[in-house]
């Protein structure tokens, strides 16, 4: 096993328009768990399909360690890449039993008899489906089908496991259970995993690294903590967490993490200079005296707290949480404990 390197990868389709993937460079460390995060149509699935070998890059290259998997002129066919994939639709073969589905990669590799049976049993045990070996995929529930697909990935000890929005078709309760299964799977197999999702919470919970994409471009790659705490640019800031982005007069200093004093200093500047985008998350907005005046636009009761939408005097919106009930139209005073200049 080795690092997976995407080197200035681009892909344009014959239909024209902007490239689906544009100059993406990325290194996934061995045994890493990378989440490719972005809104639908951002090119993340195209990146995944290029790594799998279903699409050929129009520019740039993909390397696994020293070995070039694909560039614009040549590519290794998917059947020779030793990768595995969990598809959004699970892609179980309906005419084969669960055991046959899981054992098929071994059958293709010419492994037969006792050895194959043992490996299939082990894989099914890892996803707790031993007793379902003789069933047909049609007789299983969505979560069980997902686990069969995972067992099929496990069985050949692949270098890279690709997951294409594997939880999109599951209900909320099953998602949590499957997230746990994926983490277990990653720890057990040690394979490099690449996980495509549009759900930032899913990406944060699972991955060791998150890569955010938009309109074919890679915006930022970092650990979930880093992405959350120090997002780069409006798009990442807007995508991760529930924050709002304020446009404020910008001071010329390098300090990006702003406390209340720094925030007040920015507000106090005259209005006609250059502006900066400042990310403010609702948990950092405190209803306290001697803060900014804010008008309550809407109130949503979430059980443990109230989620508020506020308007600042200059009309910009802000989100905040409150333990006390408030009414639409109330005037509050808020203190911003922490903000991040994008």
């Amino acid at each position: 096993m080795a690092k997976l390197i995407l080197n200035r990868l681009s892909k344009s389709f014959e239909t024209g328009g902007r490239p689906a993937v544009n100059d993406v460079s990325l290194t996934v460390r061995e045994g890493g768990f990378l989440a490719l995060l972005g809104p639908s149509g951002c090119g993340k699935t195209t990146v995944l399909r290029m790594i799998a070998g279903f699409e050929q890059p129009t520019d740039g290259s993909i390397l696994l360690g020293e070995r070039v998997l694909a560039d614009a002129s040549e590519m290794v066919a998917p059947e020779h890449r030793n990768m595995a994939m969990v598809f959004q639709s699970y892609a179980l073969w309906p005419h084969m039993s669960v055991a046959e589905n899981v054992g098929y990669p071994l059958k293709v590799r010419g492994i037969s008899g006792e050895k194959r049976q043992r490996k299939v049993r082990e894989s099914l045990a890892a996803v707790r489906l031993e007793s379902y070996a003789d069933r047909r995929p049609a007789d299983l529930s969505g979560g069980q089908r997902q686990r069969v697909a995972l067992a099929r990935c496990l069985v050949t000890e692949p270098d890279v496991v690709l997951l294409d929005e594997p939880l999109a078709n599951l209900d909320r309760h099953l998602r949590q259970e499957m997230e746990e299964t994926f983490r277990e799977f990653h720890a057990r197999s040690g394979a490099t995993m690449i996980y495509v999702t549009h759900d930032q919470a899913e990406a944060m919970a699972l991955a060791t690294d998150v890569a955010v994409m938009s309109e074919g471009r890679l915006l930022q790659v970092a650990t979930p903590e880093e992405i959350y705490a120090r997002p780069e640019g409006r798009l990442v800031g807007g995508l991760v967490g529930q924050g709002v982005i304020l446009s404020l007069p910008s001071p010329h200093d390098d300090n990006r993490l702003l406390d209340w004093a720094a925030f007040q200093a920015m507000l106090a500047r005259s209005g006609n200079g250059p502006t900066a985008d400042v990310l403010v998350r609702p948990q950092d907005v405190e209803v306290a005296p001697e803060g900014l005046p804010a008008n309550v636009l809407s109130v949503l009761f979430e059980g443990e707290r109230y989620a508020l939408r506020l308007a600042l005097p200059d009309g910009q919106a802000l989100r905040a949480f409150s333990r006390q009930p408030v009414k639409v139209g109330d005037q509050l005073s808020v203190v911003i404990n922490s903000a991040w200049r994008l």
Partner: protein
Amino acid sequence: MIRASHRGNSQPRWLFPFVITVIFFLSVLPLGRLAVTGIASAMGGGARQMLGDPGLWQAVYNTLSTSFFGMIAAVVLGGGFALLLTLFDIRGKTALGFLFMLPTMIPPQVTALSWIGMTGPSSTLLKAIGMAPPLGSPQPLYSIGGIALLYGVQNAPLVYLSLRAGLLALPRDGVEAARLAGASSWQVLKDVILPLSLPGFTAGAAIAFVSCVGNFGIPAILGIPASIYTLPTLIYSKFANFGPGTFGDVSLLSALIGILSIVGLAVEERVLRGRDYRVIGLSGRVAVFRLGNWRWLAEAGLWLTIFVILFMPLTALIASSLAPAYGVPLNTSTATLHAYREILFRQAVTRTAFTNSIGLSLATAFGLLVVTVLTGYFLVRGKSRLTRVISALAEIPYALPGIVLAVAFILLFAAPIPVIGVSIYGTIWIILIAYFSSFFAVSLKPVVSAFRQVDPSLEEAARLAGAGFGRRLRDILVPLVAPAAGASVILVFLIACNELTISALLWSAGTQTLGVAIYNLDDSGSFNLASALSVLVVIMVVAMMLALELMAKRLPKGVVPWRS
């Protein structure tokens, strides 16, 4: 271990050249050859001579008039059945639909024979019940009207299917909205359903017309004895009196048939293209109208029609096959299975015909399947811009009348094949190649619809599992399309086994098919033997249609042609 393949394509490199080669030999080459000969003959002045021949214009007139009246009959019959069975609460719809579809699958020459057995002075059936007209009175079916009537019976199912597909696609909520707007059943029918189903009517009529223009079996049996020639039978008779100008003449005649067919098909295409509104709203189950007191009358009418167009002719056919000799009255003491013994055990000709037809049909059905599975895969998965052109080229030989295709293959193979110097003209191989070309579209259609239903990720998962193309085909793709492939084999076998038009021109001693054998037996006056052979053919047709009917639930929609 590292094998580089070009592009992210799942197809092996040889697939595209393979498909192109197949399409070239089965479609482009024969039709191109026909066009070249036709044009050369037209330039060479052969056309002027032929266009001055009053026989040609008589044949054109006969073709157009029989086809037009045949189309009218088909629209009345097929339209009536489609409207009643689809929109109203008739009982026994499945049985009625199946029986109504039978005539189109029964070979035309068998239809013609059975109707002859039902009418006219020498009808065994009429004699047995004492209703035969006096000897010497004319056989009423040997006429333009007779030919048109049988065209109508034979092609009514085409109108039925086209109209029914349109009716089933009607949005039910549109009907319900009209009801809520206060329209009565009759007003809904008149103002909503009939206008929306007009394209189905027109398209069905156009297909029926094209099918009539190309029909050979019916005018051959009903027209030739009365010297009523249509364009296909004129081609046949030109070959019977072979002369130096024959090739030029028949290629011009084929071009005429081809033009008439293309006009018809263009009408169909145009009408169906305008049918955009059918995607709006929920379609599926059509609102069923209650007939109330009229129901029993409608049902009686439908069953009476089935009785007249199906049961009576087939009873007459069986009666003719049981008669000891032509014209001898049939009763319980004279009935004999002599004719069956004769064709099954004594006559070398019919036994050869059985062997040839079954062998040819099996070879065509299974041989084509190999080709169409690969072509279907290419058409469905291919990203090439050529796929649309290729599917159109694959459709053309089946859409054209068989007689045109037969002429094309005669022109192509009349001389020995260049390079290898072997001549296949007059051998069974020329029939086989013509069958491959003609039934390619029949075999391809079910396979393509099955491939369309296969989620591409099923194959991608197999690729990542390490399976190469051959392996994926064997383990994943073929098992998934197997039911449709089975239907494709049965359909091609059924149609090839009953085929007459192509083999009528391409057969020679020793290579006659069942269709040719029936025609020749009738032509030589052995009406009872021809009838017995026809009865066996009808039994085979019904058995295979029932087999497909039983498979229908496991097949993609549209694979079994008479179910919609």
